[in-house]
């Protein structure tokens, strides 16, 4: 099928090049700032509320219609003040936030300190079922509004106080110096009164304070966003609006891009990667995103938690030929991992190339030796568990197993163990029902080293599904969080990361790239560190 259509794709690229201006997008084709572009989208899984959205597709919309206290720079990932005039602290525990003057929601309501405090209290409250509620868990009084068991005993968090129209104070449960940097996350945006007063109406047509306003929203098929002309920020939209179209299959979206019916695809399907250079030329982007894939281990299983297990895990890591797999299977859209964070953090932000050292380098002989020294594979075989429904995980799991089998000279050393649906896979991995390594992916919430380490490896942390635990690691993380000097905090986090390495708590596989392809109408397309297009900067025509 693919081979037969290659010529077709090449031919149609030319056709599209000629026809693109005539049939693109559905907006007016004049080269002004008023033209609308169309972009592929997938229906969000959860209701579209800031504290309830935990996947990229819903987050994409929130980042278009909301602005929070901080905003992550699309290039560097650095947290910069947006609505925050100042965030002050003297002890890394009590913060005073001053909100900038002159900001309103697109319905005219003023953005005040109360807009933030109410939104955060809403997000944290157990009664509202918000899936990102734990983002507020650093704030004092969280355990009263969101107890681990039983009914909530307070309406609001005691650590949040409105002290003026534009000022409020935050008291944390413990020292956390990078707390201000987390405030660029979507869960922390302010909400207008309409959100509480007419909740259903708000969900049908969300109102925010960002560069775009929702014009219409047909659930499951399309959302039309238009530029909000009265937007007070500096990052006002440079196009007239964005139409997000829901696609059932990203292959269809790509075909539509080829035919000139769509302007932007932010997820080029794996099957098309071979043709993409031919089809799009330089209208294709493939840059690292804050996503790392690893193999996690069930430390609750005593087979994986005995004396020689570290050597076995290190041996497995050395038996995986990352270069070859990322080249052949992923067409270089992944980069072999050499630490447990992501290159988007930058060297100052905590990414340290090569921290994994020789343990992430392919060496069949060393791998075999290490595994033998460690007492061999538990039960003579490893089964890598993954969900088979999305993400073409089968392809790379089979390749990893192949690599391990070749290195160990044993056809049965490693096999894949597919599970039908993502939900079932998650329910098995979160309830500790797996007996071998399993795929683990981590997409960062905010560009901080802390976010790559604490949720995954801290004792009993929210995403520590393998139940790994190390007192030394926990202590280093606590110290890093309390550290007020960012450079020293990063240094401390890297020490903690070395503990992860020395124990091989998880095998780092590769960093994932974000990809995008676009029509000739567009220019200035970029992906931010979360692999979401920077819509407001795109120029049409």
């Amino acid at each position, binding site marked *: 099928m693919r081979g037969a259509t290659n010529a077709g794709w090449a031919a149609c690229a030319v056709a599209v090049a000629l026809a693109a201006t005539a049939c693109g997008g559905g907006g007016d084709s004049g080269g002004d700032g008023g033209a609308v572009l169309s972009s592929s989208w997938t229906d969000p*899984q959860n209701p579209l509320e800031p504290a309830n959205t935990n996947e990229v597709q819903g987050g994409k919309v929130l980042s278009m219609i909301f602005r929070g206290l901080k905003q992550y720079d699309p290039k560097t990932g650095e947290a910069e003040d947006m609505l925050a005039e100042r965030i002050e602290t003297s002890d890394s525990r009590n913060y005073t936030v001053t909100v900038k003057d002159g900001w309103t929601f697109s319905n005219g309501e003023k953005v005040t300190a109360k807009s933030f405090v109410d939104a955060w209290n809403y997000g944290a409250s*157990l009664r509202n*079922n*918000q899936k990102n509620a734990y983002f507020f868990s650093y704030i004092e009084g969280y355990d009263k509004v969101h107890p681990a*068991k039983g009914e909530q005993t307070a309406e609001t968090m005691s650590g949040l106080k409105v002290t003026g129209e534009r000022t409020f104070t935050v008291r944390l449960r413990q020292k956390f110096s990078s707390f201000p940097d987390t405030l660029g996350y979507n869960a922390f945006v302010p909400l207008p009164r309409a959100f509480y007063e007419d909740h259903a109406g708000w969900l049908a047509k969300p109102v925010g304070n960002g560069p775009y306003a929702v014009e219409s929203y047909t659930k499951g098929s399309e959302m039309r966003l238009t530029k909000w002309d009265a937007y007070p920020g500096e990052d006002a939209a440079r196009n007239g609006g964005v139409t997000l179209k829901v696609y059932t299959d990203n292959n269809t979206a790509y*075909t539509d891009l080829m035919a000139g019916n769509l302007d932007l695809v932010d997820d080029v399907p794996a099957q098309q990667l071979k043709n993409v250079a031919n089809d799009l030329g330089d209208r294709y982007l493939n840059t690292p995103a804050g996503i790392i894939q690893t193999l996690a281990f069930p430390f609750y299983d005593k087979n994986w938690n005995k004396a020689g297990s570290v050597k076995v895990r290190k041996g497995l890591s050395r038996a995986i030929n990352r270069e070859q797999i990322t080249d052949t299977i992923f067409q270089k859209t992944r980069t072999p991992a050499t630490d447990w964070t992501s290159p988007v953090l930058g060297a100052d932000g905590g990414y340290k190339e090569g921290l994994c050292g020789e343990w992430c380098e392919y060496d069949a002989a060393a791998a075999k030796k290490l595994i033998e020294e460690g007492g061999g594979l538990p039960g003579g075989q490893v089964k890598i568990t993954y969900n088979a429904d999305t993400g073409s995980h089968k392809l790379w799991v089979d390749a990893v197993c192949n690599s391990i089998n070749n290195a160990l000279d044993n056809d049965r050393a490693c096999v894949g163990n597919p599970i039908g649906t993502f*939900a079932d896979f998650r*329910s098995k991995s979160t309830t500790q029902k797996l007996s071998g390594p399993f795929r*683990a992916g981590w997409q960062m919430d905010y560009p901080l080293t802390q976010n790559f380490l604490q949720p995954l490896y801290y004792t009993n942390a929210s995403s520590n599904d393998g139940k790994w635990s190390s007192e030394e690691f926990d202590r280093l993380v606590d110290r890093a969080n309390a550290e007020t000097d960012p450079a020293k905090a990063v240094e401390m986090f890297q020490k903690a990361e070395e503990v992860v390495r020395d124990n091989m708590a998880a095998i780092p596989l590769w960093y994932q790239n974000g990809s995008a392809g676009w029509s000739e109408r567009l220019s200035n397309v970029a992906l931010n560190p979360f692999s979401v297009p920077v819509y407001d900067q795109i120029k049409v025509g």
Partner: protein
Amino acid sequence: MGRYVVRRLVQMVPVFIGSTLLIFLMVNVMGDPVAGLCGDRQCDAATAAQLKKEFGLDQPVWQQYLTYMGNVFTGDFGTAFNGQEVTELMSTAFPVTIRLTIVAILFEVVIGITLGVVTGLRRGRPIDTGVLLFTLVVISVPTFVTGLLLQLMLGVERDWIRPSVSTEAPFDELIVPGLVLASVSLAYITRLTRTSIAENRRSDYVRTAIAKGLPRHRVVTRHLLRNSLIPVVTFIGADIGFLMGGAIVTERIFNIHGVGYQLYQGILRQNTQTVVGFVTVLVLVFLLCNLVVDLLYAVLDPRIRYA
């Protein structure tokens, strides 16, 4: 006739209950749907418990089923995980798929039966061999290949159609997807009609009709075709149900947000309410189609009577 219809309707009740129960159990053994809702991060225990309570997942399965069926009879199909009522999903998905099915059935009836009659009357001639070969090719090529190829040839290379169908999914955009959806059934209908016509052509009543000196078109349409349609009608009746539920592949290729898409999403996200709701309606469609087919027999062949 009236009693027959009532008896058939009563028979539907156990079939309906049985099939919904089966689907309900099948979706439920897939495990805990809440686990998938929080993405790659675990839902905190309190939120997970709260969500389970809200969707009624903390009850035993039999109780969930009873509550569910109780609600269904009052027209409440529950809420999908994204906060939308399942009835709302149905009201957007079913019209689209019904339109797609109508297009497909029209293709089947018009092209399929015409080709069948033509070839059945000209057995062994070049046109017969040609159509036989053609239908064999259509049957053996999988739908997704036909779909993707047509999409590429007509949508990208030629720009005659849009490769993806818009939200409103009007009839004219559904012509090509409808043809793709109909293709395999169309080929079967051609072959069924052909065989049936060829067989009945030699029967006594056709010879009598010809001997009476009736015009040829009257012999073919009133005598020959009407009796030959019984197996074809049976096939089309069953096909309506299959087309509505089984349009997943076609709907995916052409980005049609119909029943197939909703079912696929529902299964991927393990959304019990969506899956069971849509399947319940599809079961009803199947049952009603079968009833209509059985009643049509009497219209086509008066010798068939219902006690």
